């Protein structure tokens, strides 16, 4: 970038003096188009959710949460290490499958983060500033859901990586461990993705109806809690009961898909165990929730009117 002098050198008794241009510097690069805009919005939303460039208070919860969800992995590896030469060596407190579970903390995190990246844009009426940028309403939704997805996926996946690598290093032969547990290498990312896309789409869709974050968070948690209770009641009300009504439990729905990924069907302790077509119905409800969420979002953020 060159500085353009505005005045010719003025020779005076003290030598030459010159004023360099302190005026406006136009942008002479190339403006990224739609893709750059969407990426930037995605990045900004991720930053916001993780508290980057914000006060330490905003950073506290996400990073603390990451630590909390990683603790089971650390503990497990620790135990495996400590018991490696003892008869209790195969004792684990958590399996990979179980770890892809609905950790309460993670859920609370989604319940707080999705509203935080969606509601302020509505509340502060910032949307017009975004409308006027080179992206469409759908791009906006993709960026926002993408941001939540990224974080939920990361928080679900990273602890698993810690667990796997830890176990690998603690075992007698790392390569053998790797080969024996190779299936886990695709099962975990796929099931975590299925979980993440579900929760992020649903949470963002619910949040898009509210202008206040607290209202959105409450609505989200209430819906998930109520459906889980209703499913339990309809399903017999007893721990260990199995019933087709388990699919009504929106909170635990993705877990059925996780079971499919890990075990080909409902696991022994799943409420869908032994139910005819349980998996198919579960999958159907899952896809319906996803479609409904995206449908809602597409409608809520349709910027261009005919």
């Amino acid at each position, binding site marked *: 970038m060159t500085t353009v002098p505005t005045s010719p050198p003025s020779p005076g008794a003290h030598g030459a003096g010159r004023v360099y241009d302190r*005026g*406006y510097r136009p942008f002479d690069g190339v403006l990224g188009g739609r893709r750059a805009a969407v990426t930037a919005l995605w990045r900004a939303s991720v930053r916001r959710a993780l508290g980057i460039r914000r006060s330490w208070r905003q950073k506290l919860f996400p990073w603390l949460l990451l630590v909390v969800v990683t603790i089971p992995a650390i503990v497990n590896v620790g135990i495996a290490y400590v018991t490696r030469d003892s008869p209790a060596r195969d004792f684990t407190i958590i399996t990979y499958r179980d770890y892809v579970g609905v950790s309460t903390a993670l859920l609370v995190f989604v319940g707080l983060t999705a509203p935080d990246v969606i509601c302020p844009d509505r509340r502060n*009426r910032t949307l017009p500033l975004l*409308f*006027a*940028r080179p992206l469409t309403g759908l791009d906006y939704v993709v960026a926002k859901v993408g941001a939540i997805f990224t974080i939920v996926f990361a928080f679900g996946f990273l602890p698993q990586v810690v667990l796997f690598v830890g176990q690998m290093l603690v075992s007698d032969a790392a390569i053998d461990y790797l080969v024996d547990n190779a299936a886990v290498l695709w099962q975990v990312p796929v099931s975590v993705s299925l979980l993440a896309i579900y929760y992020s789409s649903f949470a963002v869709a619910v949040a898009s109806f509210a202008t206040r974050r607290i209202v959105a968070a409450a609505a989200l948690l209430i819906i998930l809690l109520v459906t889980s209770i209703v499913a339990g009641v309809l399903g017999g009300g007893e721990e260990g009961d199995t019933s087709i009504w388990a699919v009504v439990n929106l909170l635990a729905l993705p877990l059925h898909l996780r079971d499919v990924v890990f075990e080909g069907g409902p696991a022994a302790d799943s409420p869908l165990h032994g139910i005819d077509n349980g998996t198919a119905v579960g999958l159907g409800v899952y896809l319906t929730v996803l479609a409904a969420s995206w449908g809602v979002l597409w409608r809520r953020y349709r910027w261009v009117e005919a």
Partner: protein
Amino acid sequence: MTAESASLVETRALTKTYSGGVRALDGLDLSLTEGTIGLVGANGAGKSTLFRILLGLTRPDHGTVRVAGLDVATDPIGVRSRLGFMPEHDCLPTDQSATDVVATLGEIAGLPARAARQRASDVLDLVGLDEARFRPIEGFSTGMRQRTKLAQAIVADPTLVLLDEPTAGLDPAGRHEMLDLIRRLAGFGISVIIATHLLDDVQATCDQVVMIDAGRLVAAGRTADLLETTGRVRVDVGGRGPELVAALAGEAGALGSATLAADGSVEIAADAEAEVDRLIEAVHRAGLPLHGLSSGRRTLDDVFLDRARTAHGAA
């Protein structure tokens, strides 16, 4: 350079009717060149509809629009890349700093991250936000918010910015500063369309004016051209008008029929150089003080009312 590329905004037969029969725009033909343009409207949603159409956010029922050489119907995203927008209402996230907001919005406009940071810093300098830029917007005064809004509109070095009532809520000093800022934008190669109800602002800042009433174009052109002289000369002799009228009574030509106006000034129906010279001679001979002399340029208020009245009369 063809006429096409020199023009900033071109619309032809632009029409938009909302459900309920509200005709926001009715066969609008515009041809605006680079510069600072005032958009004044009455009786209807015309100005916001026009902005939305320029941004490609609303599809017109009829007609074509070209902005900065691009057809809005075929490439709305491309058009938005070259536009900046400053809404009238509060629209800034309150828990972030001005720097953060402007840089982020710059990135979302397509600027690379480092360029966005630098441009944010530059434009915040330009609008006069100093250390305040690092504080959360929550604590900003109206003037600071308006300036931040303007900053985010120009951060990506747009060809054209659309400003919706940029002086709303500002006290006289703030208005002054904002209008100064807007005047400077043209020098940076940024054209401006200001939508406002304050004709005074337009007269002070804009070199082109577009007036819309009930969706139809009532007047458009260069400000200077619209403000024709009225062919009358008005002189203010500090309350001693009657003396001047008496002194002029015997004069030949228009001077002889000088009249006393309601505010105490004296009017003659001519503005030829010779007449004005003789008028001043008369003032001098009569020993009267010369407080004011003007050839009665109209204000945009007068122009608007005139045109609006004729438009309604014809409708």
